[in-house]
């Protein structure tokens, strides 16, 4: 019996007939983030975001701070990629504001939202602190400023402060909790903190061990022994 592999009639459309399509080595693994430099942020934006994430996730005895965990790198790489462009979203017009239940209706991509939001935030900071940039503030002043964004008392020119805060908070926390292959959660810091063993795939020995701590070593996609470098 002849196994017919995917025979492409056109670029991507395929005819499947005669057997299961299969090609040796076919796979689509994630591309590991290289940690150096910025791909989207300017040097100033990068420094600002680093300072910001370091307050959202401060260094303490539970984990390193957001900056050392790579949260700013995570956000930068996401914004430089398809996610930053809203790739895959329905982006046809007309664009009109709707109810809260109808969801976001803006044509502004996350990458654009950060560029605008960070600039407006920096302007608001300098205005509030006699010309000082956010990165120059002490920790208490930084926290105060962030709280102002969070509750909307710090107004940003042309940007919804509360929505911008929610965006950067969500992205920072995702960077903290995601697999380290994406640039954040360095050394699986968050997973070690909470007790999530990571990318294990076989817990059959543990399902019956009720109320017992799982003692497996924490692993991630790129640190798993199955990963061939």
């Amino acid at each position: 019996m002849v196994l017919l592999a995917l025979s492409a009639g056109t670029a991507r459309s395929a005819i499947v007939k005669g057997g299961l399509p299969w090609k040796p080595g076919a796979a689509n693994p994630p591309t590991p983030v290289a940690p150096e430099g910025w791909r989207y942020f300017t040097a100033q934006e990068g420094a600002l975001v680093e300072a910001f994430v370091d307050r959202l996730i401060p260094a303490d005895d539970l984990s390193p701070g957001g900056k050392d965990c790579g949260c700013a790198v995570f956000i930068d790489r996401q914004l430089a990629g398809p996610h930053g462009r809203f790739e895959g979203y329905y982006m046809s017009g007309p664009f009109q504001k709707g109810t809260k239940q109808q969801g976001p209706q803006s044509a502004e991509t996350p990458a654009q939202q950060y560029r605008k939001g960070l600039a407006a935030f920096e302007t608001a900071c300098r205005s509030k602190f006699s010309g000082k940039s956010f990165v120059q503030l002490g920790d208490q002043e930084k926290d105060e400023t962030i709280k102002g964004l969070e509750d909307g008392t710090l107004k940003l020119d042309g940007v919804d402060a509360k929505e911008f805060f929610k965006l950067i908070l969500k992205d920072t926390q995702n960077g903290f909790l995601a697999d380290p292959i994406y640039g954040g959660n360095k050394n699986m810091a968050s997973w070690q903190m909470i007790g999530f063993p990571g990318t294990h795939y076989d817990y059959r020995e543990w399902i019956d061990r009720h109320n017992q701590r799982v003692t497996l070593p924490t692993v991630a996609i790129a640190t798993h022994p199955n990963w061939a470098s």
Partner: protein
Amino acid sequence: MAQKLPHKDAVIIGLGWTGSILAHELTDAGLDVVAIERGPWRDTGTDFSITYAQDELRYRIQHELFLRPAQISVTFRNNAQQTALPVRNWGAFMLGNGVGGAGVHWNAETWRFLPSDFVLRTHLTQRYGANFLPQDMTIQDWGVSYDELEPHYDAFEYLCGTSGQAGNIKGQIQPGGNPFEGPRSRPYPTPPLKQGYGHALFAEAARQLGYKPFPQPAGNLSQAYTNPLGVTLGQCTYCGFCEWFGCANYSKSSPQTTILPVLVRKSNFEARTECEVTRINLDNTGKRATGVSYVNASGEEFEQPADLVILCGFQLFNVQLLLLSGIGKPYDPNTGEGQIGRNFTHQTMSTALGFFDKDKFNFNPFVSAGAIGMCIDEFNGDNFDHGPLGFVGGGYLGQVQTNGRPMETTAVPPGTPAWGSKWKQALRDNYLSTINAGGGVHASFYSYRDVYMDLDPTYKDRFGRPLVRLTIDFHDNELKMSAWLTDKYAEIIQRMGAKQVVKHPRKGPYDVTQYQTSHLCGGAIMGENPGNSALNKYLQSWDVPNLFVQGATAFPQNAGYNPTGTVGALAYWSAAAIRSQYLKNPGPLVHA
């Protein structure tokens, strides 16, 4: 100019669960069958590799296995006074894409509906009187009974290898199973899954409160199993990366793990992937389908003639295709006329979080499976007296937490700061000792005159065709039901020994950004006559007899259970009618 292709006996639109079942049944009957699938080919070895399937960001947060709204979306509004706007990114529901459809990424919760669910209007009217039902509620009897479907539920469960504990075998109630279920002819093909600490503790609390908990029926298999087609599934490893993800173990029931390996080897079957059907073509009487038109990934158009057309897409797109092809009459909510687009329903989901003492309770939430869980059915359907309560409907309650994925399950008690060291501490202190079952209360969504689908006047898909427009909101009946059920659920969580229980009953308005399962139903419902339905009891179109429409599109209203078990049963039931009746004598199977 569309290229006309050689004739096929049957063309199947969409190669998900129902497409795969129908393709297998029809090729088995000797037909030459082509299936046309909008998305890509997907398979375990190439797409759900065990080395990188466990990626929460990629598959759970960024939904890589799902349809992209850029390819096609829908518009939404709560009521006719609003302008519907596009769903630019999925929220309330997530749509599958590719071969296997939602069967690739589902939880595999495999339920049957209750016998009374199939005769809902008759049953509720008899018990409570016609005036008990809201005037604008449009629930109906299905036109098919549980007893007629039972052998086909059985067929789907044995195809899947479903793991469960029978509760009622031929009328005999079985200990440890669901005492409320309709009678089944034999036990499940494999034993129930093992349960984690949180799931087992819920069952114990439920028993103490006088309920009869049972393990959720699961298409994550408790042991290796070879199905009647000769396809073998593996044993579930409780990996906690189930729903939203493909399974790397071959242990989740899907078209890939149950049918496709056999189907694609048949000489009379062919699948064409990344080809989108744009229209079901009709002859000049409008009563006969001549085949379909489709577009491939390069934009080339084709016409595929066929004697039999089986529409097996997801519910939303089945309805869109019927409307765009001019099949049946579009529903008008003002006159009440027209069958296509009416009785559109979803699901009424809610939960309660339980925060426990971290020094006494360790739930290991990451040791889990998609359809794990202990459930009670005392408050589903009409299993309880609604008379004093002032609502109809119900759902199962269960500790059905499927995972401990960090971005999804790091709940913190109310009042915890959203960031900073206190946030980190709350994460650390609660992660292992919180019960957080998103699907804890899985309740019905009955149908209403003003909840429906039609074509949007403004927004288009990438072919320039109108998007489907959803007009949907919760009604008082469902919200009242949700509050009551959530209270019952919270009682059980409290009884488990929680130090704090936080209730999250469903509140209106219907919000298209908040996930509530992808159990969208209706729009081309089945029924007893063409005056109140689009399809007859065999899912055959009343308007176009050589067209059959599969899926939850046929549900006149949604019950308090996951729909896929019933979708599978209806597919086998419909296929049996096509094989034993239609093929011998093509034409309407029901004369009403």
